């Protein structure tokens, strides 16, 4: 077994004078039609968290793919511990001690933690479980976490799964750890815990690359911040500057680096964060749009269902639903959309019970669901954008007459929606699967907000989107206060605080409380999320998930 951390341990005093763990110099990588990285240089030092910021398509992923050995740069050099090195395959990267934790879990759910960790270990015929168990203990001690080696990966909470992923990335003995948007699925508590883990990894002498969209995380966690835009490094903020500036100054500086000096881009995120809480107090007194009465529904697999959920959503209102992922969010959304059957209780839409009404009919009534699983169930990747836009109206006039498809009508309206929602696509005939994540979400929004939408359920509406698209989506949600209504299910508390009038908290399939948005709401919601919990949150969540 290699040592836990390769290379010599960091000296706390002179980390910056030391030889950097990895140096990327003048990396250029071009693909047909786009230069993904243009003369990018990056220095990763032991014992430092290096935050990499940038919009989607800024070139972060390509840079990390080069570092992980999955792409070869067209030009430029990589130096590991000062030695010029060619990382010509993912295996080489692993042997060099460069480990990556991807945004989405790569653990195999039904396998145990130990089995997952041994997956990459093909060096000998017989799996060394005893050795792996000891090694896992060492890593857990180093990270300051407790992990049951024999529980199945799918039974762990997301934060815990991520810890296993980190250990998996470090398994072969790491000097560099790449984290790709590690906080996007986590609760505030899990983020805090991740922060502690990062501190310990730093102390152990690892160089960490932290990719994120979230400015405040970069400011809070980074020892060094590099901003990429359109494949180029637009700016770097070093340790001294981070220490010397206030968080607000830093965020302003980063926004400038990310979007350039154009006022439109620079103001949109800031203005929005500030202006979120004020406008939506008086509108919340419309008629009842959507009502859940003691609704029960069963879950699927390790995902819990919902139990005795009662909610009231009025026209002109945005109701947020907060909670740790995997607490019945999907069941709640699908019960409203009609994709999941109620086992008890009732769903009423504008006063009328719709519990037995089909998905298609609810859609036609104006009850919409913007799914979080955009690729898995949102779009049909092989069909053109135009058909995807009208897919929920399949077989209905004016797009189908007598069962026959009317291409002209479909394409005309699709073009209109593409223009109105700013979906970037070569044409309406392009296959939907070729669009970027943000544009796929815009496609889904165009489909579900159009055609007389009255009540829209959003599930993680901005998950994985870049800053600009995120704000565009949040604006669209806010626009529903014009007399329509929105239910926003999100694991991102900041998002809910920004868009909602009230925030309900979903825990283990139950609504444990509803909070009026305003000053102090964040703390109240946070407290509700961990209510009746005296142990650490993650322990309880883990135990719950194991029990169910």
């Amino acid at each position, binding site marked *: 077994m290699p040592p836990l951390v390769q290379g010599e341990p960091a000296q706390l005093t002179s980390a910056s004078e030391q030889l950097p763990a990895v140096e990327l110099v003048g990396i250029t990588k071009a693909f047909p039609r786009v230069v993904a990285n243009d003369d990018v240089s990056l220095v990763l030092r032991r014992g430092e968290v290096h935050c990499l910021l940038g919009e989607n398509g800024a070139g972060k992923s*390509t840079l990390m793919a080069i570092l992980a050995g*999955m*792409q070869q740069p067209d030009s430029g050099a990589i130096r590991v511990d000062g030695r010029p090195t060619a990382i010509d395959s993912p295996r080489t990267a692993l042997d060099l001690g460069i480990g990556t934790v991807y945004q989405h879990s790569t653990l195999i759910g039904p396998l145990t933690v130990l089995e997952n960790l041994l997956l990459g270990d093909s060096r000998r015929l017989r799996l060394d479980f005893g050795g792996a168990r000891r090694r896992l203990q060492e890593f857990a001690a180093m990270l300051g976490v407790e992990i049951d080696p024999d529980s199945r990966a799918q039974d762990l909470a997301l934060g815990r799964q991520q810890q296993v992923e980190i250990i998996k990335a470090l398994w072969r003995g790491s000097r560099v750890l790449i984290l790709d948007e590690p906080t996007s699925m986590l609760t505030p508590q899990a983020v805090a815990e991740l922060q502690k883990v990062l501190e310990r990894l730093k102390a152990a002498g690892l160089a960490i690359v932290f990719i994120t969209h979230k400015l405040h995380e970069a400011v809070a966690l980074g020892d060094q911040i590099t901003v990429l835009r359109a494949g180029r490094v637009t700016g770097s903020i070093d340790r001294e500057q981070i220490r010397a500036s206030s968080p607000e100054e830093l965020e302003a500086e980063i926004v400038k680096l990310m979007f350039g000096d154009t006022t439109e881009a620079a103001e949109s995120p800031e203005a929005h964060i500030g202006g979120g809480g004020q406008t939506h107090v008086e509108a919340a007194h419309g008629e009842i749009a959507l009502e859940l009465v003691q609704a029960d529904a069963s879950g699927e697999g390790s995902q819990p269902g919902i139990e005795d959920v009662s909610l009231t959503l009025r026209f002109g209102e945005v109701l947020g639903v907060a909670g740790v992922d995997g607490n019945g969010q999907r069941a709640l959304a699908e019960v409203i959309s009609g994709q999941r059957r109620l086992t008890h209780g009732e769903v009423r839409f504008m006063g009328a019970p719709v519990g037995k009404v089909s*998905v298609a009919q609810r859609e036609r009534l104006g009850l919409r669901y913007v799914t979080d699983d955009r690729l898995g169930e949102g779009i049909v*990747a092989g069909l053109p954008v135009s058909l995807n836009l009208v897919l929920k109206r399949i077989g209905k006039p004016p797009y189908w007459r007598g069962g*026959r498809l009317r291409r002209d009508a479909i394409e005309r309206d699709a073009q209109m929606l593409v223009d109105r929602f700013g979906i970037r696509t070569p044409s309406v005939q392009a296959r939907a699967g070729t669009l970027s994540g943000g544009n796929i979400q815009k496609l889904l929004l165009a489909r579900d907000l159009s055609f007389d939408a009255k009540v829209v359920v959003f599930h993680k509406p901005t998950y994985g989107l870049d800053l600009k698209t995120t704000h565009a989506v949040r604006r669209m949600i806010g626009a529903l206060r014009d007399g329509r209504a929105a239910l926003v299910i999100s694991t991102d508390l900041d998002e809910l605080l920004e868009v909602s009038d009230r925030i309900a908290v979903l825990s283990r399939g139950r609504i444990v409380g509803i909070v009026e948005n305003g000053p102090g709401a964040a703390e109240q919601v946070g407290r509700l999320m961990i209510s009746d919990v005296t142990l650490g949150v993650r322990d309880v969540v883990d135990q719950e998930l194991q029990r169910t």
Partner: protein
Amino acid sequence: MSDSVSIPAQPEPTDVIVAQPPRVGRGSGRVRSRRAAAAGDALVRSLVPVILALIAGGLLLLILGRDPVSFYSDIWKGGIQQGSWEDSAMRGAPLLLIAVGLTVIFRANIWNLGYDGQFLIGAALITGIAPHLLSTPNAVSLVVMFLVAMAAGAAWTIIPALLKSRYETNEIITTLMMSFIGIGVANILVKGPFQDPTVNIPQTRVIPLDHMLPSIPGTRIHVGVLVALAAALIAHFVLTRTAFGLRLHVLGSNPRAAAHIGINVRRLIVSAFLVSGALVGAAAAADILGVWGYMRANWNPAYGDTVIPFVFLARLNAVAVIPFIAFFAVLSNGGDLAASNAHLPTDFLLVLVALILLFMTVIEYLGRRRGLGGSYLTPGLRAALRVPLLRRRRASEVCR
């Protein structure tokens, strides 16, 4: 859906839904040429395996000490010349109907592999009731018998259909099981209630010639061939231009999306099965009423097995499958003569079919490397087949 993992993926249909009409104005030339290029690629991909199989088959004949030239010219003689093309056409009719029936359901990524049972149940019922319909007008009795066969074929899919739609039971297993039961039941019917009492061989009574399907004037070809061609054209229209066809496509390419956009997935699964079974039943009617006129016990032509490669070669396109079926009909019809002249068993023709399948796989692999045309396979299965290219592909995904 959980079973999308366990069930083999099927090819993405080449599709008029996806292909777009040329747009007028700027850029239309480019669109058209791109479409032409895509069509050309598809043609290459479809024909090359056939040509390679014929070449490899020729080499095999050489090794066996036969003359490939005379073998293939015998096929030409026996399959095309001197009116034998008419026999080939009639041989193709049931094949085409089964191919269309499989195309419809494969598009929904559902595997109806119970075609033999569906076919034989339909055939047995027709030969059983035919003697009782001799007094009714010919047109009426023929239509009734077609409908009976179609209903029988459809009925034989109901159990797998309901099991799949209710409980997501793997239909590969259930249709195969139902097929074995169907073959057995058909034999029981032929040996039991439908047995011709006047003969000692277990077979049904023979339908009089004047009660069989009429010929197209001026030829010996029965009208069942026209029925099959019409079925292919109608199926193609339905699959590519109607809401039903699009629903099947959505179900086939993303079943979770089908549920999300409000398609009644359970009902659609059952409909797809019924249509598929009915077309297989129609194939039985066309074959019995057009060619055989009676059924023997233990008769099982297993048309579906030979048809499946062509359904995939045509990439689930109900019209594109016609030339392939025509090709195979000529091959098998002329092959009888060629094989007996070359002193080979007729099973040698199945070797040719197997070679076609083999070369489809080879072309699939090469085509991926060279970017040649569309694939026969869905992206998931394609990825699994391309292990040597894994690294390059993953990298391109990462940077996207």
